[in-house]
């Protein structure tokens, strides 16, 4: 797609993670490669079904792949880390296992066959090739803001879908440095936030959040930056159980601010405006 990228939003970016979608849309527009939402798509299922015999839970992600195929596109972009992980693993399974693809197409008997020709990318793959454009788009460098990058799990594991080095990623650090922020070395950046346990085992998530946030704050981080709406919720919401209160930004929110664009900040539990005003980033 010459004018931009075909974009799969997933359920959360249309609701609790809308700050990520709205800021990413603005950022990509500014970079000259807008995200163009698919005409039709399905919820990916949020977590990958790992059982060998479970084809049923691969249907939703593959139907989305079929929608991309119908639109004549071979590249599909996600923002949400969990969607990226599920779509990518389901798609790879169809590419690698002919029998599974055949079974899938028998299930999808009312739709055209999926030809396994679509490739799934995360926003980070796109930004990696646009560093000079990012640098040029920065109008208000975020000087003086100290942040800890946080990847979580789904961008890096399992290793066959990793967007960067599984144990020592640096993609996000490189993007952040282009924005003028001070980026801390954060060894906790690849640890799990507690994931879906937030539904019925808040105690587990609170321990993970305490561990991750206390390290970052202890090193001097004024905010944590990430790209997963579940990590954002967990690190933001469950900080209430800790002594800390540092904002949790989507990376595209900081990019938008550095590009001189407005951001909505509708989903934040810990309001970032105080910090942004203190730093002279917001008036």
């Amino acid at each position: 797609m010459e004018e931009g990228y075909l974009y799969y939003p997933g359920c959360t970016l249309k609701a609790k993670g809308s700050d990520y979608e709205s800021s990413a849309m603005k950022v990509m527009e500014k970079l000259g490669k807008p995200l163009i939402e698919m005409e039709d798509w399905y919820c990916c299922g949020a977590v990958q079904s790992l059982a060998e015999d479970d084809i049923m839970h691969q249907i939703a992600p593959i139907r989305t792949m079929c929608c991309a195929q119908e639109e004549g596109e071979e590249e599909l972009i996600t923002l949400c880390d969990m969607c990226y992980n599920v779509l990518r693993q389901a798609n790879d399974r169809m590419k690698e296992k002919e029998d599974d693809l055949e079974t899938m197409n028998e299930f999808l008997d009312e739709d055209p066959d999926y030809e396994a020709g679509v490739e799934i990318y995360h926003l980070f793959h796109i930004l990696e090739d646009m560093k000079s454009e990012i640098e040029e788009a920065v109008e208000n460098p975020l000087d003086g803001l100290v942040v800890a990058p946080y990847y979580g799990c789904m961008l890096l594991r399992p290793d066959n879908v990793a967007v960067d080095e599984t144990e020592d990623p640096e993609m996000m650090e490189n993007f952040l440095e282009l924005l003028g922020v001070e980026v801390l070395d954060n060894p906790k950046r690849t640890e799990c936030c507690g994931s879906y346990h937030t539904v019925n085992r808040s105690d587990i998530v609170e321990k993970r959040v305490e561990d991750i946030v206390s390290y970052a704050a202890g090193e001097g981080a004024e905010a944590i930056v990430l790209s997963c709406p579940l990590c954002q919720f967990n690190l933001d919401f469950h900080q209430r159980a800790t002594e800390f209160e540092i904002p949790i930004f989507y990376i595209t929110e900081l990019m938008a601010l550095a590009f001189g664009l407005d951001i909505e900040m509708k989903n934040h539990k810990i309001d970032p405006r105080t910090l942004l005003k203190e730093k002279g980033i917001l008036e």
Partner: protein
Amino acid sequence: MKLKKLRGDIDFMEKVEELSDESLNSCIQCGTCSAGCPFVEDMEILPERVFKHITLGNIDEVLEHNTMWICAACYTCSVRCPRDIDIAKIMEAVRQIVLRADIDMVDVDEVDNIEELPQLAVVGCFRKETG
């Protein structure tokens, strides 16, 4: 009642290996999985103990402890295992055996702040904890 039926019905290790496509006998009990697991303090038995119990046929030891439900499939163990065992798939296989016996681990009526939660958390939890 349902758990009793489960124990009597299947060759547990064979079923786990079939569902995961992983070999449990490859495990050398090195403990790398436990060392890196961010959830290990909430697990009643360590991940490598789960594998050992499965290979020894101690099904009760596996089913009566919470380890597979605390695992959130973050894949840290899978990428670090020196024997290249995809441990997340083994935990999923054990969960699936229980869930397919019609035993759910979460009830929507007992989630008290469901409107507050991001959609993918709810979908993810119900996918991992209900059959």
